[in-house]
């Protein structure tokens, strides 16, 4: 095997790993869209908010410290304790459930029956709101998530593959965190599928996704289901936030990276969980390979737009996405 080819394979694998991250965020979108028809633009900011909250709780930060200090002239920052990771994660899950309830109660309950595009724009508003709230609550400085997740490249893999393509090949460099993320994503998807197939609430969720009216008429509480999916999406956001945050620090750019989940969805279709996964992998792989092959010729940083342009071109030829159902128009 030539070195060139091995490097290409490495790029490919790293692309797949990045794709897993995109898939994680896309998963949250699909959950909400299936159950309520809301295209939740704020999913990325939810991941940021969840990660900020987790970091804040672990550090023992006082929420709204800045604003309290400004008003009362006090100087409080921390409670002075450190919360263990597991407890902090559980607390954050509760915060996300509270958030789900609030979103349903104060926003989307009042928008039932509105056009999808109005709901979409409302979630853009929600994204702004949440971003500002996160900053006010926890401050806008970059935080690190010290969850003890493995960092850096996997030495054993590097050692095992070194020299495969001759002396100048040092072995595959693959981030351990990415591997963890892949495993976590696989577990998460399996759990979600099991939940929706085999539990009472899961079935109710699928019923609502299929037909709101019919679900109502067999006695399913729409309100409950919607809070449930928003909570689930909040949980998925937390997982995505932890992974992304552990990788590059918890900061605003996290919500921008999460925008990448949008082209993933366009590729995979908005209603398909496998679609979100496959779409994520294609986008992750595609942008890394494109940057590796074409990037140097055009000045690099093609990752900024590649995903969007790919999705755009793809949609022109197949508007329903990879796994979406064919749209038959009627009058």
């Amino acid at each position: 095997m030539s070195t060139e080819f091995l490097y290409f394979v490495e790029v490919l694998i790293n692309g797949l790993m990045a794709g897993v991250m995109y898939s994680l965020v896309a998963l949250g979108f699909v959950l909400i869209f299936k159950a309520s028809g809301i295209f939740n633009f704020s999913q990325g900011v939810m991941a940021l908010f969840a990660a900020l909250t987790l970091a804040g709780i672990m550090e023992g930060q006082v929420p709204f410290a800045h604003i309290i200090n400004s008003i009362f002239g006090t100087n409080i920052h921390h409670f002075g304790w450190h919360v263990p990771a597991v407890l902090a994660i559980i607390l954050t899950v509760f915060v996300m459930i509270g958030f789900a309830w609030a979103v349903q109660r104060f926003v989307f309950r009042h928008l039932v029956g509105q056009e999808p595009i109005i709901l979409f724009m409302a979630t853009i508003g929600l994204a702004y709101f949440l971003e500002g709230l996160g900053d006010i609550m926890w401050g806008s400085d970059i935080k690190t998530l010290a969850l003890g997740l493995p960092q850096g490249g996997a030495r054993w893999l590097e050692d095992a593959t070194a020299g495969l393509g001759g002396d100048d090949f040092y072995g595959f460099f693959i981030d351990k965190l990415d591997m963890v993320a892949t495993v976590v994503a696989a577990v998460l998807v399996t759990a979600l599928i099991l939940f929706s197939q085999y539990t009472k609430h899961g079935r109710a969720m699928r019923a609502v996704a299929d037909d709101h009216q019919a679900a109502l008429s067999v006695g399913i509480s729409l309100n409950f289901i919607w809070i449930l999916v928003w909570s689930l999406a909040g949980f998925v956001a937390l997982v995505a936030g932890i992974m992304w945050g552990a990788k590059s620090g918890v900061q605003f750019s996290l919500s921008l990276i999460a925008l990448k989940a949008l082209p993933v969805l366009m590729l995979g279709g908005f209603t398909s969980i496998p679609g979100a996964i496959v779409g994520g992998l294609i986008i992750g792989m595609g942008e890394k390979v494109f940057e590796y092959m074409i990037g140097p010729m055009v000045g690099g940083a093609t990752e900024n737009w590649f995903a969007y342009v790919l999705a755009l071109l793809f949609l022109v030829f197949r508007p329903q996405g990879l796994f979406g159902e064919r749209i038959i128009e009627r009058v």
Partner: protein
Amino acid sequence: MFYREAGDFKTSYAEDNQTFPIKFDRYRYWFVLAVAFLVIPFIINDYWANAIFVPFLIYSIAAIGLNILTGYCGQVSLGTGGFMAVGAYACYKLMTAFPEVNILIHIILSGGITAVVGAAFGLPSLRIKGFYLAVATLAAQFFLIWLFNKVAWFYNYSASGQISAPERFVGGIAVTGPNTEAWAKYMVCLVFVTLCGLAARNLTRGTTGRKWMAIRDMDIAAEIIGVNPLKAKLTAFAVSSFFVGIAGALFFAVYLGAVEGGEAFGIQKSFLVLFMVIIGGLGSIFGSFAGAAFLVVLPVALKMIGVDLLGWPTDIVSHFQLVVVGALIMFFLIKEPHGLAQLWRVIKEKLRLWPFPH
């Protein structure tokens, strides 16, 4: 009694088609124009021009542009920032390549170039609908900004990667460059706003506007009664981008003087203009002005209250601003999807019948 007419007294169709069917409105419109053209230029200073008036006028043009596309034709775009950048860079290239040509012509040409680019990115709209299209316009946003940052030709190979507007004159008075006076900036923008506003109003009340709205309300039915959907959507993209491009050119050449593409025209700008349109009112020219005014004044007002009055640190106030804007967007979408313009209309309808509402 300052608001009249409670029956139908019109005797010709031209009269029935007026923009301001009520005399009082008509007088007020002329009054606003008179103040804008004859009073403000003489009393404006740098602070008011740079903090309020010039950005308000420029964002109004951008908001009119986006409103044509989103409010009238129903195609949501998140690429406004990218299209503003096209206008700005087009203007810069024209200014430096043809220094002898009048800057006003350059600004209009920049709009034209943006219209072509906008129409090109509008092509997929025939097959992609709703938020699929909204996400697809992100491709325009990210690709265009990347292009302007990476291809040195666009910024004339300057070391900083910035573009800065050379000094240009209209009738011997500087309108771009560091020596421009506040009133000159203001007047250039005002002239463009007035022309754009009139053109937009005329387009939206005639056949073109009806085609757009037909596509927005029910595209299949529109096609069956004889609207060519591709042509209607592309005109909407082109006209919208024309306005947005002019706004971008003014934003760069007249308002800021020097910009760095990714910073001035990033995704945040796209959202800002979209928010103006939502808050002001989808499908209303007046709403575009109202929304632009609101979101230009809001940060200034918040800063005055938060920083100057309460003494809070600026970063908290700017975070607070996000919360307020986000909450307002949701509030308007819930309570009044037609925005400030609809609130205004409701007040006017009540006034028309006042004081005998029954």
